[in-house]
């Protein structure tokens, strides 16, 4: 009996999700034994044409991490979709756009301007920019085209499951792979993590008061976070109430607020909007000026509430001005 074929691929990502697979530690041997990894650019020497040569749906599951930002990533997404029974969006970037999704606040042109010309440490007198096609030493060179908009995987191809997290925890990954191997999969489209907000499993839940009324907000670099008490109750934005659980609150246990990487529960369309609703509703003052003073402690609502989810939010990006 041949082992089920499995593939891993990375798009616009940091490599953290590959680390997460490796972080399965001893368990990775169990994984490697049970499956046949036929494609993993980070760790193995298979080529794209190997994938092209496979029959459709011959890969049982592809775990694809990273957001979709280039033409090549779109191409690979379509290819792997064709060749896989199950296409799984692995990690926050492929699930929601992730940190790269924050680029949706800017126009591509502005990003390239900054990265290749206006950046303070830039030394690029020739004004070189990456080109889709160019020649170098007589050879024709093709580079992928950068898209204007950063996308989540499901904004490009049909996705079967999501494993959330930045990165997903080893426990979650193991559970997902296990479920896959046993054939015990939930309905298509499910996010493979508990559908309850993080507060449910947070060790500091008991210390959160039932009469919270915010009079100020602080950012983690502005004050010391008390190690015992609910972080949100201390005035630091913790996305826990609006974020799925399943990570065992690792960030909170590291005395840092949750930043929302597991995304919203299935009942919420837009994580950032819902969290805004909750946190603003609980602001203490009633008068506009006083309200604004409290809210001034959140200088960057987009970056704070949509740190991982901007590409999948209802508006998807900062709407560019016409022309």
């Amino acid at each position, binding site marked *: 009996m041949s082992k089920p074929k499995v593939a891993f691929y990375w798009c616009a990502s940091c490599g953290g999700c590959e680390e997460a697979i490796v972080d399965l530690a001893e368990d990775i041997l169990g994984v490697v034994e049970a499956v046949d990894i036929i494609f993993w650019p980070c760790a193995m020497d298979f080529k*794209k044409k190997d994938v*092209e040569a496979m029959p459709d749906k011959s890969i049982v599951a592809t775990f694809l991490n990273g957001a979709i930002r280039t*033409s090549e990533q*779109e*191409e*690979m*997404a*379509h*290819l792997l979709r*064709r060749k896989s029974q199950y296409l799984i969006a692995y990690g926050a970037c492929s699930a929601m756009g992730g940190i790269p999704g924050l680029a949706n*606040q800017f126009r591509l042109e502005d990003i390239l301007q900054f990265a290749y010309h206006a950046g303070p440490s830039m030394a690029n007198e020739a004004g070189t920019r990456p080109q889709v096609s160019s020649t170098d030493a007589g*050879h*024709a*060179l*093709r580079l992928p085209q950068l*898209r*204007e*908009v950063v*996308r989540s995987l499901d904004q*490009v*191809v049909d996705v079967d499951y999501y494993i959330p997290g930045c990165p997903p925890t080893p426990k979650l990954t193991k559970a997902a792979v296990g479920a896959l191997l046993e054939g015990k999969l939930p309905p298509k489209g499910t996010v493979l993590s508990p559908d309850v907000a993080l507060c449910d499993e947070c060790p500091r839940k008991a210390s959160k008061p039932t009469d919270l009324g915010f009079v100020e907000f602080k950012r983690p670099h502005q004050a010391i976070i008390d190690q015992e008490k609910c972080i949100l109750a201390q005035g630091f934005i913790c996305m826990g109430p609006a974020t799925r659980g399943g990570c065992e609150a690792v960030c909170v246990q590291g005395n840092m607020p949750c930043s929302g990487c597991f995304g919203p529960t299935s009942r*919420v*369309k*837009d994580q*950032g*909007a*819902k969290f*805004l*609703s909750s*946190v*603003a*509703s609980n*602001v203490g003052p*009633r008068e*506009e000026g006083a*309200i*604004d003073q409290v*809210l001034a402690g*959140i200088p*960057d*609502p*987009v970056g704070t*509430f949509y740190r991982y989810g901007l590409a999948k*939010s*209802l*508006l*998807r*990006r*900062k*709407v*560019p*001005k*016409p022309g």
Partner: protein
Amino acid sequence: MNDKPWEPRIVAFFCNWCTYTAADLAGVSRMKYAANVRTIRLMCSGRVDPQFIMDAFAKGADGVLIGGCHPGDCHYGEGNYKMLRRFQLLQRMLGDLGIEPERLRLEWISAAEGDKVKSVINDMVEKVKALGPFDLPGQFQSWDREMMTEAEALAHAGHQEAK
């Protein structure tokens, strides 16, 4: 398509006790105002979830109007204060996301202020008209044109490496 000039479409969320009643009063008094607003009735402006507002824009609204009771007069005590707090942050955040402030408006209109319904709607329609269409669905469509189709992607995938 018809060749009539573009008219803004504004989705309004009105609270049952004050603004919706005031709009009824405007109707009973036969006041006349612009026809661009379509109202969704809720019990309280506190029920207005920011997701509704963003969803309205995402589905094609050019403007969103929220009507509630004056501060201190909410039929349920304080729902309108919660709405106000959300609004203060939401308008700033939507501004950061490229939505002009005139497209999202919060007004306190009491049950007796039928004339205010008329003047607010007329004013908002005028301002949104000046800004032009928002048409986020149309924008989504045009942004997504940069993507390759599945056929293109697969054809490209079979493409040999350039020499």
